[in-house]
């Protein structure tokens, strides 16, 4: 584990431990932050009245399940299906870890 990861894992510990959802294994929040740069082309940083939600607000389990549902086609939006198909389990876990960290930074639960 890199130093940055170790630090984040400690500081964002609660959320990272909460990752025992559909995706097992530990996410690298630094990788997650890089991957999340892709999401911000469409997802806003804050709540808006638009149809695309800010991602850090979504509970970790919900977030992971939603991405899985786009992968299987259960959720139908082709834009998000393409996004999700480009993510493996490691990527999803890393994104989840990063957004959990961000949620904590923003004072969420």
């Amino acid at each position, binding site marked *: 584990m890199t130093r*940055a990861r170790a*630090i*984040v894992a400690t500081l964002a510990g609660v959320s990272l431990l909460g990752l025992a959802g559909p995706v097992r294994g530990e996410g690298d*929040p*630094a990788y997650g932050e890089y991957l999340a740069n892709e999401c911000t*082309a*469409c997802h806003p940083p804050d709540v808006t009245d638009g149809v695309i939600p800010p991602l850090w607000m979504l509970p970790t389990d919900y977030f992971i399940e939603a991405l899985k549902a786009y992968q299987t086609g259960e959720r139908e939006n082709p834009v998000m299906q393409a996004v999700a198909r480009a993510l493996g389990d490691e990527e999803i876990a890393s994104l989840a870890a990063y957004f959990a960290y961000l949620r904590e930074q923003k004072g969420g639960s």
Partner: protein
Amino acid sequence: MSRLTRRGLLGTTAVLGVGLVAAPHVLRAQTRPKVVVIGGGAGGATVAKYVARDSKGAIEVALVEPKETYTTCFYSNLYLAGWRSLESITHRYVNLVEKYGVIHYRDMAVDVDTGKKVVRLASGRELPYDKLVVAPGIDFRFDTIEGYDEAASMDMPHAYQAGEQTALLRTQLEAMEDGGTVVIAPPPNPYRCPPGPYERTSLIANYLKKTKPKSKILVCDSKDKFSKQALFQDAWQRYYDGMIEWIPGELGGRVVKVDTKAMTVTLEGGDVIKASVANIIPAQKAGWIAHRAGLANDSGWCPIDPDSMASTVAQDVYVLGDASIASKMPKSGFAANSQAKVVAMDIRHQLLGDKRFPARYRNTCWSSVADNDAVKVGASYKAGETQIEVVDKFISQVDEPPEVRAQTRAEADAWYDSITQDMFA
């Protein structure tokens, strides 16, 4: 917790406690590495913001952009339709400067010495760099249509660099009488925003149908097919039946000559059309400064390394956005924004030793075709051996139900707000 900075999270060189003192770039704090970005458009603004923000001041970022504000070409067709104001698609650099410490030189880059690693500005100022990002967008090949040069574009606007040109086209459409003919001349490939001229056709038709329903649009094309063609033609038939005629290149549609006094447009097939409004979009090439810097090849565009967008011609130089040859990636604002993030990561890796991840690129282009109807096309990309390659793609279907189209229309608005925040907020 408050000491866990963004740099700490992003980099392997964590800016924390002892790590701070040991980090080589901090020891060199007096002479921070310098990044110069030429062009504050979709690509340049993103890269300037990302490098400055994520390096937390460890890299000095200079943005060279003569304009005080940036009006996006994306969504400019919605302004032509009368749906959006010009202000709502115009953005300022103030956040880049005040929040992230980007230095904005309101100046033109006029020369680049890639050997000495210096950019010269019109004012005479010289900016040395460790890494240079060239993102000047497009210039026009004014030698391809007889009679069409920069002066002619004041009578027959291209409206393919947003701002004055777009406002001019809108003014002409407003002044036009009912029953007039609008000529739209899309450029040959490759060009900025492949669906752009056809979204424009749809949205000008949308405006005319509401205000001047006897008018006609003649799309005089140099090509035989175009992006999202089936989707556009389906929409034209459903919403604007009889109003739009598309003349492909194989039927002599290419515009070969214009006369701005007579307001006539001559087609390759021999027809001379009297236009009420003529939107002539000429063939394109990488922005002038990219040529001046020696970064372009014979195609008129700049070859790059697919894994980093680094120029394959000059050291320590990146080219991104429309000016680059991103192979399968279209020239779009979305693509430029996506490429900029890869460049920003590579720069921090090279200059600060921050962690590097594999390049990933994405594009999505929404096109509005009517009030509650938009279509989309998109793809995921990766770096191949020699070029950027498609991993996966999608496109809207012709027979989608209205709810899906309405959702797509709403998504486009949400995307516009997000991506412009991603660039400028």
